[in-house]
Structures are given as structure tokens and as C-alpha cells.
């Protein structure tokens, strides 16, 4: 199947690496292959490439270079921030505050820490998937060592009131981590202004390479390593540097931030068209916040049908999308995000996530609207739950 026949609308799952990023990475695979920690000249090229990438990331977040640590993915950054803070601050307390709609990289990490004797508060969200800063403040205890609330949700795109939460955390002198895997490169981030202590990023969500991540760690933060070993990354994240990957994530983030305004404008328009088109289908609704959401995220629910079936039919038409249905998850649990928003299980199964990206055009959007309309009707005709008035043959 060639790319030209494909309409890829699953950019929240992953993105292709930009051509200029691929080009920038390749020289660091074979030609400039040295280990940045080595003393000889050929390693200097690698050391400098890593330093440049670091300052690119720092500028994108309004951080300092030495607050940027390269990791292997967003998951590692989340695990590191949360476990590292928990273990390093055991003497201070054992309580962590998070939300019910975090990515599993945060939720399962918290659950594992509970097994190690930590205590975790999972804050609820409203129907739009929004955490209430007042709830955060109310949950703070004397032994709270960490607040971790995601920047933007991967399923419904809702953007949290990060600056407000950061302010509260700072006032109460509690560390604040945010999983910005879906936000970085897509919406403006300022770790200083927002009082963020730690922030997770994953390269492949903004047209950088898979297997790359960043954890921003503010200067005041004390945390244990997750990767113990060599002296890399100021002795905080061991492991020979993935130089090509680091070059890739640095450049990709810089480019994404540079083009952010233009991209947002373009995607906002496409998204609006897509949402308007899909919501003409009866018994459909938009999930997530109507305005405070990622520019590229559309998440809709069609009652009486199941998401995996929608995806399979879209796939046959060359359209790539995603769903929160349990039937598409290895765990057979329906989306914890949609259920946390108060949507009943049976309806969650009918969710469809379309996330726009660089390759999508208005023509794509129109094709997708028509395809979804057709598929929803087909599946509703097949479903025993569909009310008669919605059946059309």
C-alpha cells in the first residue's frame, strides 16, 4: 500500500519523521558515530550535536540547557519523573496527586508505587475531561511530594489549566510534573511562567524519531535516577547517548515550535470542518472540551456501534484512525478517559479519534466525513441496539 492512497488521521498515535530531520540524523549513525563521552576529536562532533539539540529543546520550553535530559521515550520520562521524585523524597512524604485521565505511563507508574507503599489520589475530571485546580489544592496533604497532571490529553485533546496548577503547587511547595507528550510542539509551553518542575516529551509525537524523549527537570528538583550506570546526562540518566535520536528530537521540536502558529491556524480550520461534518450524523457527540483542546484532535462518539468495526472499515478505505473501545485494546478495558468524563461504557465503545497532521488536506477531511457517515450507517444497520428510526437500507 503506498502512502499516497492513505489518509493518515492518527497523528496522536505517532507521526512520520520530517524529511529534514531524517537528513539531520543520518550522519550520526555511521559517519559521526563516536561516543560523546570519549576524549578524542571525532567524539567532539557528537558531543556538540547533543549540546545543540539540548539548547534547541531548552529554548522551545523556556528552560535552561542544563535542565534538559534526553530519555528514550515519553514513557521513560513519565516513569522517571514520578518514581524518581517518589524515591528521592521518601523522607518527606509518600503522597502523590494525579488525575483519572492520565496516560497509562503515569497511571500504571502510580499504581506500581502504591504497591511500594506510596499513596496516590486520582482526581476526577468534569464532562469535558478537565481537572479542577481547586480539587488539586484540596488534595494537597502535608506529606504530598508530587502533583502530576498531564498538559493535554491524548484521547480527547483537552488542555488542562497547567499554569493554575503550577501556581498552586509552587505556593504549597510541592513538586509539579506534567506529561506534555501530546502538547509539546503543538501548543505553547513555558516551564518558568507555568511553574512546571518536570515535563515529559516524546519525539515521535511531533514528527521526530521514535525512541526519543526528554525530561525537563527544573533546578530545584531532587530526584533519583531511573537508569543507573554511566556518567551521561550529568550523571542523572545513564546509557550511551542515542546521538542520532537526540539530534532528531531537538530539530523536530525546534521546527514544530517555529511553525506552530501557522500549523495551528491550518489545523484549526480543518478540525472545525471535520467536527461539523461528523456531528451531522444523528446520535453523535464531540468528546473533550469544545475550545480548550489540541488543534489537531477530534474525538466523536456514535451511539449503537463499536469503534474497532469503524476502524476496520475506515482502514479498508485507506483511512487511519483510532478508538477508545475496549475491543481495540489488549486489556479489553474501554477508555478510562472517556469513562472518567462520565460517558457510559456502552457508548464509549462507539468512539472514534481522528488526529490531524502535516499531511492532511481539506479534501482528506471531506473524504473522511463521507466515509464515516457511510460506515456508521452500515454498522448501525447491523447492530441490534439501533432504534428503528435510525436504520436505513
Amino acid at each position: 500500500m503506498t502512502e499516497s492512497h492513505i489518509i493518515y488521521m492518527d497523528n496522536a498515535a505517532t507521526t512520520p519523521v520530517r524529511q529534514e530531520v531524517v537528513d539531520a540524523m543520518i550522519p550520526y549513525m555511521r559517519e559521526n558515530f563516536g561516543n560523546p563521552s570519549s576524549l578524542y576529536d571525532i567524539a567532539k562532533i557528537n558531543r556538540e550535536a547533543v549540546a545543540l539539540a539540548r539548547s534547541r529543546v531548552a529554548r522551545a520550553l523556556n528552560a535552561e540547557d542544563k535542565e534538559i535530559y534526553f530519555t528514550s521515550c515519553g514513557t521513560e520520562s513519565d516513569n522517571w519523573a514520578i518514581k524518581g521524585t517518589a524515591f528521592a523524597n521518601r523522607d518527606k512524604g509518600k503522597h502523590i496527586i494525579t488525575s483519572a485521565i492520565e496516560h497509562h505511563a503515569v497511571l500504571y507508574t502510580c499504581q506500581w508505587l502504591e504497591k511500594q507503599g506510596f499513596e496516590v489520589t486520582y482526581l476526577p475530571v468534569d464532562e469535558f475531561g478537565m481537572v479542577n485546580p481547586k480539587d488539586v489544592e484540596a488534595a494537597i496533604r502535608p506529606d504530598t511530594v508530587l502533583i502530576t497532571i498531564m498538559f493535554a490529553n491524548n484521547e480527547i485533546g483537552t488542555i488542562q489549566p497547567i499554569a493554575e496548577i503550577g501556581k498552586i503547587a509552587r505556593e504549597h511547595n510541592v513538586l509539579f510534573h506534567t506529561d506534555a507528550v501530546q502538547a509539546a510542539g503543538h501548543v505553547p509551553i513555558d516551564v518558568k511562567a507555568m511553574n512546571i518542575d518536570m515535563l515529559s516529551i516524546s519525539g515521535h509525537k511531533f514528527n521526530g524519531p521514535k525512541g526519543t524523549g526528554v525530561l525537563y527537570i527544573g533546578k530545584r528538583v531532587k530526584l533519583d535516577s531511573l537508569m543507573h550506570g554511566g556518567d551521561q546526562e550529568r550523571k542523572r540518566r545513564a546509557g550511551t547517548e542515542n546521538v542520532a535520536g537526540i539530534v532528531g528530537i531537538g530539530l523536530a521540536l525546534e521546527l514544530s515550535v517555529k511553525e506552530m502558529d501557522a500549523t495551528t491556524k491550518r489545523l484549526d480550520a480543518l478540525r472545525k470542518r471535520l467536527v461539523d461534518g461528523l456531528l451531522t450524523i444523528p446520535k453523535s457527540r464531540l468528546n473533550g472540551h469544545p475550545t480548550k483542546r489540541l488543534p489537531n484532535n477530534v474525538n466523536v462518539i456514535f451511539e449503537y456501534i463499536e469503534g474497532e468495526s469503524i476502524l476496520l472499515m475506515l482502514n479498508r478505505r485507506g483511512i487511519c484512525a483510532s478508538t477508545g473501545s475496549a475491543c481495540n485494546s489488549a486489556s479489553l478495558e474501554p477508555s478510562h478517559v472517556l469513562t472518567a468524563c462520565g460517558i457510559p461504557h456502552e457508548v464509549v465503545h462507539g468512539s472514534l479519534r481522528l488526529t490531524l497532521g502535516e499531511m492532511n488536506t481539506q479534501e482528506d477531511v471531506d473524504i473522511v466525513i463521507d466515509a464515516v457517515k457511510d460506515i456508521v450507517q452500515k454498522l448501525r444497520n447491523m447492530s441490534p441496539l439501533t432504534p428503528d428510526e435510525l436504520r436505513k437500507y
Partner: protein
Amino acid sequence: MDYSEKVMDHFENPRNQGILENPDGIGVEGNPQCGDIMKIYIKVADNRIADVKFQTFGCGAAIASSSMATEMIMGKTLEEAWDLSNKAVAQALDGLPPQKVHCSVLAEDAIHRAINDYRVKQGLEPWEEKPGHKKHCHESQ
């Protein structure tokens, strides 16, 4: 999801999909909270499945299993239809991914329900359903 071509064929071109007017038996299995529900309609003549149709809310495997299962019991005696196992359905579909095997169980159970519905309506004793089935939701893997 790595479905076989057979699964995809039955998913995209479902056999026996629809509603039977005045069925002799109806079986419903699954529940919408779990993401799949299957409804089987049968007509019986001379102790055989004279006609069968299904309606399914569910994933690709659920729809394909319904389609394949109905095709497999069409024309069979009730005893033969009863004996159709979920394994046979999965096999006929060239296999199902491990976490989707429960969809074939759903088909087996829905057929059992429909047959017993017919039997009860006929004043016959229902046949004994296998223990252990019935709970498909989040437990089958």
C-alpha cells in the same frame, strides 16, 4: 489487530445479517457495556435450522464470528447446531487473535440461547448450557 483474510471477508461481507420476521427462536448474548452483543434469529423446520439471521454490535471478530457461525449452522439439525463449538467457528475463520476468542464464544452461546428459546416455546426442556461461558466481558483473555 491481525485478522485473517477470512475474518475480514466475513466482517466486510457478512452472511445472514439482518432480522428474521416471526422467528422460531431468538438468542441474545453479550452486553453493550462489554462492547459486544449478538442476536441470533432462527427458523426451524424438521428439526433443522431452516433459516438464520444475526444482528451484532461489536468488533470485527464479533461480526465475523456471527457471520461464520450462522453460515455453519444453516441447514443443520438442532443437535448439530448445538454442538457447534466456538473453537470450530474460530478455526473456520482461520483463527482469531487471543484476546478475540471470546467473540466466538459469544456466537456459540447466542446460538444455544436461540435453540433453547425455540425448545422452550415448543414446550420442550431446554438443553443444559456449558458452565463457565456467559461472562465474556473483560475476562476471556
